[in-house]
């Protein structure tokens, strides 16, 4: 007898929650630092000082796809996991779970907020690359590959983020997310090409989702030639496993 209940339609509740997620993200200074300021600094600094970055043909051509990958990591892994872990420890998730907002609606709102933020990151970082460094997509650019990389990258890193947030303590998630961010920055082909790493480290880096995402972006944006499929499959594998584990192990309180 749904007419007895005062519960709003799931879509209305989910959209309201999505708005709240975005407002809170904008309000937390530490979030803005990691999702806006840090990628922007890295992009501008290494475009001006291309000590580590190869010319393909310009440093910005190598750099922008890498920083776009880092932006996905900062939002769907770092920001999502830390915010969610603290919400869990403050009992926010429990309180929401007792409201008419369905749990699927809460998850959808979080994913939606991540996607909105990532789209804004793409616009900002690409805009800066175009305006300051004259970036343009390369010859073989494919919007389909870019969108697939964006979606599968969000799935992989968002899955990892929620896996941590739902199982570790908030402080543990904070440390792990920042640690992984550093690992992915160094080994993810973001600024430094994976080929420049010593053998064993390079082999490790190639199976990590970060290098798969930056490689897929490079192919999609025409900075590199080759088949994007292996990289996309790596992302899909990480995404499927991490999301499945997160869904099974997530503790709401």
């Amino acid at each position, binding site marked *: 007898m749904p007419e007895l209940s005062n519960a709003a339609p799931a879509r209305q509740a989910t959209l309201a929650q999505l708005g709240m997620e975005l407002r809170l993200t904008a309000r937390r200074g530490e979030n803005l630092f990691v999702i806006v300021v840090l990628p922007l600094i890295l992009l501008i600094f290494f475009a001006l000082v291309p000590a580590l970055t190869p010319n393909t043909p310009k440093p910005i051509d190598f750099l922008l796809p890498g920083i776009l990958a880092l932006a996905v990591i900062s939002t769907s892994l770092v920001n999502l996991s830390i915010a969610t872990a603290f919400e869990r420890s403050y009992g926010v998730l429990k*309180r929401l779970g007792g409201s008419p907002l369905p749990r699927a609606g809460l998850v959808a709102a979080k994913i939606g907020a991540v996607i909105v933020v990532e789209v804004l990151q793409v616009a900002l970082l690409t805009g800066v690359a175009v305006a300051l460094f004259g970036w343009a997509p390369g010859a073989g650019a494919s919007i389909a590959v870019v969108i697939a990389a964006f979606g599968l990258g969000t799935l992989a890193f968002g899955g990892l983020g929620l896996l941590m947030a739902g199982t570790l303590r908030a402080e543990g998630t904070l440390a792990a997310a920042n640690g992984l961010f550093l690992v992915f920055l160094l080994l993810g082909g973001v600024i430094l090409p994976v080929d420049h790493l010593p053998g064993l480290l390079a082999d490790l880096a190639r199976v990590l989702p970060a290098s798969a995402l930056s490689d897929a972006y490079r192919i999609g944006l025409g900075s590199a030639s080759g088949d994007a499929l292996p990289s996309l499959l790596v992302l899909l594998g990480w995404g499927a496993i991490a999301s499945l584990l997160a869904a099974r192990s997530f503790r709401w309180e």
Partner: protein
Amino acid sequence: MTVAGGPSAPAVLVSDLRKVYAGRAVVDGLSFRIETGSVFAILGPNGAGKTTTVEILEGYRHRDGGQVSVLGRDPATAGAELRGRVGLMLQGGGIYPQARPREILRLYARFYRHPRNPDELLEQAGLADVARTRYKVLSGGQKQRLGLALALLGRPELAILDEPTAGMDPAAKASTRELIATLRSEGTTVLLTTHELADVEQMADAIAIVDRGRIVAAGTPAELASGAAPRLRFRLERALDAPELAALGRALGGGTVRADRGPGAYLVDGLDSTPSLVLALAAWCAERGLLVAELRTTGATLEERYLALTAERVLDA
């Protein structure tokens, strides 16, 4: 499917509820019934199993045994439909530290088809002045009142309030009790837990006193208080010294007169409150020119009953 509630169906029906944590029965065979439109209090010391019980009713925890019906539904399997009919106030808030009271009420209002007006609710809860203040800098009492406002936002048929007056100053407690009385007059069923006797004395239609996961007494506040024999209590205009107390005891016919709470307040142990006992007391005072400022022959207070029922537990703690 559960049977839809008729007019006489209880709002909540719990029978032989059990919950075991690590081999210990935290809820050990609880049974109670909450009539629609009444205020029901679960009273008990910390650790008695109150929160575990309400969290089972709220759908947060699964029971290990027994039957539970909330508005005719089983909370273990009911979804958003039931959550749209039940308002919750949790211990510890569960609100974003960076969120503001008005904004959080507006968010939750969007979860309901016909919510109360968030601004009016802020006013009623005494939060209008801090409507735009971040949650983390609110006082404990303000956080509690926001939690209560959230519970009422969806015009619930049943409000489940876990320790609604904890951490509040006396004025906030009084306005909270008023708010709950208003709810009751609107026909909302209220289930609250508390360890504060003033809450139940002033608000509850029915009480279950719970200790170590079991109901040790249940009834209306008056029924529970009358469970002990009536005793004579009185207050004199000045305090008595020890010889006077002994003399008064003899004059009353062998009872023990001992101090009650407050200066000059006494109660008589070991004697029934009879008209002749009252006469003897008045006569003894009249001889000494002492005025009896107050005199009561009521039964035990709810507090005495409660402390007696949970005494063992209090001593353990």
